[in-house]
């Protein structure tokens, strides 16, 4: 199945980001296609390279970047990002900033859009 994933919450503060990541890993393992991942609201904080978590903890931004390196389209909403000081310069590799039109296309093209957040 072709899936798109929408993430509303920031890293560490909320489990949504971890749940989404685990969901995507499980979906890929089952052979599903991830049409794209879209970060909205505080979710835009998930992919800043400025984060530096303790070494014995998961590095959430790097995890997303690794998924991006596999060719999954990872998009950060520009309107939500600008409001929160997230710009191209602070992004980890393999993710991009773009508009809500990208979310629209993911929603239309995927068979299921799965949202994570409150």
């Amino acid at each position: 199945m072709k899936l798109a994933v929408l993430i509303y919450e920031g890293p560490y503060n909320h489990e949504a980001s971890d749940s989404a990541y685990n969901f995507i890993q499980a979906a890929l393992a089952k052979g599903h296609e991830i049409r794209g991942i879209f970060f909205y609201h505080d979710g835009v904080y998930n992919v800043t390279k400025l984060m530096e978590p303790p070494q014995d903890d998961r590095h959430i931004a790097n995890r997303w970047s690794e998924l991006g390196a596999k060719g999954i389209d990872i998009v950060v909403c520009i309107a939500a990002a600008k409001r929160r000081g997230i710009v191209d310069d602070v992004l980890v590799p393999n993710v991009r900033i773009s508009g809500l039109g990208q979310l629209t296309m993911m929603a239309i093209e995927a068979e299921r859009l799965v949202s994570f957040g409150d």
Partner: protein
Amino acid sequence: MAGDVKKIMFTVRKPPHGSIYVYEGLEVKLIMAAYDADISVVFLDDGVYAMKAGQDTSKLGIKGFEKTYGVLVDYEISKVFVDRQSMEERGLTEEDLLVIGEDEETEEPVRPKMIDSAEIAAMMAEQHNILCF
């Protein structure tokens, strides 16, 4: 092809103020309305407060977005509903609802339509996507 137009529903369950979810959710609606999609919006639970007329956000120090909700019809978003039970639980009636635009033909003011949970459930079952804010 008309048959390929995807049905996208927005549900708004959170109160309009106190967090940014509802406001940023409104921005998504306005963008998606520009695409070839069949958009509907349903306000449930505390989300019905977003459709209450006469919101004053000046003391919150935020711009507020009631005015934008007031022109939803201009964005071609006219399938706007509020959940009857959520309204009644909060002591709200149809008279409390804000105007979201005017009817293209009659120029009468358009307000969200109050419907029952069963109707909402039936509409949900037809959707390609449901986005929650």
